[in-house]
C-alpha cells in the first residue's frame, strides 16, 4: 500500500498496540532510538524486547516527543522514534509545532490512539469524541502526518520514516487489550542503559 494517502480517523482500522510495537521494533536495524511514553505505551515497548536504545518514560505525560526531539537534535544521524498515547500527547500539543519548527529529519512520532486513558481505568479521552490528532499535527506544520489504515499501511509508514527525511507522525487507532508486559521501574538503570545504547558509533556515522 502506498504511503501517500489521506485516511481519516474513522477509516483507520482498530489495531493492537503490542502487535504494532513489535512490527515497528522488528524494522529497527541501525540502533534507532525509541522513547516510550507513560501509560501502556512503554509497557508494550518493554515487552517488545529491551533494546539498549529504548527509553521508558515512567512519570510525565506528554514528554516522550520532546525527549525524542532532544535526542534527535543531539544525534542527527540516528533515527529517533517517540511513542506516545493519545491521553499523554493531548497534554503537550504544542510539541507538534516545536517539532515542525525545529524540523529534525531524523524524528518520527508515533501515536497510539485508543481513545482512552487506558492505564488509569480506560476513561475516555478527547479523541473519543471530537479531537483528531493527525489534523492537529498537520495544522501545526507536521505535513507528513498520517493515520495508519491497517497493519500493512502502518509498516509502510514506518519504512518511509526509516528511509525518508522527517519529521513524520504516524497515528494508529488501537484496541483496549492489555499490554504484553510491565516495565521495570528503575529510572537510574533505564537512563544508563539508554545512554550506553546511544554511545555507539552508529548515531554519528549513519548518513
Amino acid at each position, binding site marked *: 500500500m502506498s504511503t501517500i494517502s489521506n485516511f481519516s480517523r474513522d477509516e483507520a482500522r482498530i489495531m493492537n498496540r503490542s502487535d504494532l510495537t513489535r512490527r515497528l521494533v522488528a524494522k529497527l536495524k541501525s540502533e534507532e532510538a525509541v522513547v516510550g511514553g507513560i501509560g501502556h505505551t512503554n509497557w508494550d515497548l518493554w515487552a517488545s524486547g529491551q533494546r539498549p536504545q529504548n527509553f521508558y518514560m515512567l*512519570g510525565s505525560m506528554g514528554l516522550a516527543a520532546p*525527549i525524542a526531539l532532544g*535526542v534527535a537534535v543531539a544525534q542527527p544521524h540516528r533515527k529517533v522514534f517517540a511513542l506516545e498515547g493519545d491521553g499523554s500527547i493531548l497534554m503537550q500539543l504544542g510539541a507538534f509545532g516545536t517539532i515542525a519548527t525545529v524540523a529534525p529529519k531524523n524524528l518520527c512520532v508515533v501515536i497510539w490512539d485508543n481513545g482512552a486513558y487506558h492505564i488509569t481505568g480506560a476513561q475516555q479521552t478527547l479523541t473519543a469524541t471530537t479531537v483528531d490528532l493527525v489534523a492537529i499535527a498537520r495544522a501545526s506544520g507536521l505535513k507528513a502526518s498520517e493515520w495508519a489504515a491497517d497493519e500493512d499501511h502502518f509498516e509502510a509508514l514506518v519504512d518511509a520514516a526509516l528511509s525518508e527525511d522527517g519529521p513524520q507522525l504516524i497515528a494508529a487507532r488501537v484496541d483496549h487489550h492489555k499490554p504484553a508486559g510491565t516495565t521495570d521501574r528503575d529510572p537510574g538503570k533505564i537512563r544508563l542503559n539508554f545512554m550506553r545504547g546511544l554511545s555507539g558509533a552508529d548515531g554519528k556515522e549513519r548518513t
Partner: protein
Amino acid sequence: MTSKDYDEPWHETVVRVLRANGVDLVTYIPDNVLRDLIQALHDDPYFTVICPAREEEAVAIVAGAYMAGRRGVVLMQTSGFATLPNALASMIVPFQIPLVMVISERGVLGEFQLGQAIVCRTMRPVLETLGIEHRAIEERSHVEFVVNGMIQQAFATQSPAAIILSPLLTKRQH
C-alpha cells in the same frame, strides 16, 4: 564596584561561560529580563536555540539531548518554573539528569503584580523539597564564578541545578 569594572554585560559573561563548558543547546520560554541573553544566543552560531511552547518541553528536550551526549541549558522566568514540579519530580530527579536551569526571578524587589509575587514564593520551597541545588546571583562580580560552578557541579554530580537571576543583578545599576 563601579560600572567600568565590568565592560562585559552579565549576559555576555553567561554566554562565555556556557561556551567554556561545552553547553551548546539552549531551550527557553522568554522573559523580558532574559531578552539580551536570548538575542545573544540566537546571534551566535555555536548555539542551537529552541523556543518551544512550554517549559516542560524545554526541559524534556535538554534531558533527551543530555542522554544523547549533548549539553544544554533551559532559560525561563519564575512563572515558567512554577509549571515544572511534575516534570522535575517524575523525570529529572529520579532519572538523575543534570538539568541546568537559568531562572529570572520575577515577583520580588519592586513587583507590581500580586500574582507574580505569589508565584515566586513557590519556587524555593519546590527546589528545596526536590533537593535541587540552587543559588541566586545578586552581584555582577559573582556571575562567572557561580554560573561556572553550578554547571560544572551539575554535570560532575549528575544532579540538576537552578541558577536564579535576582533583580539585584538584572535590574540594579552596577
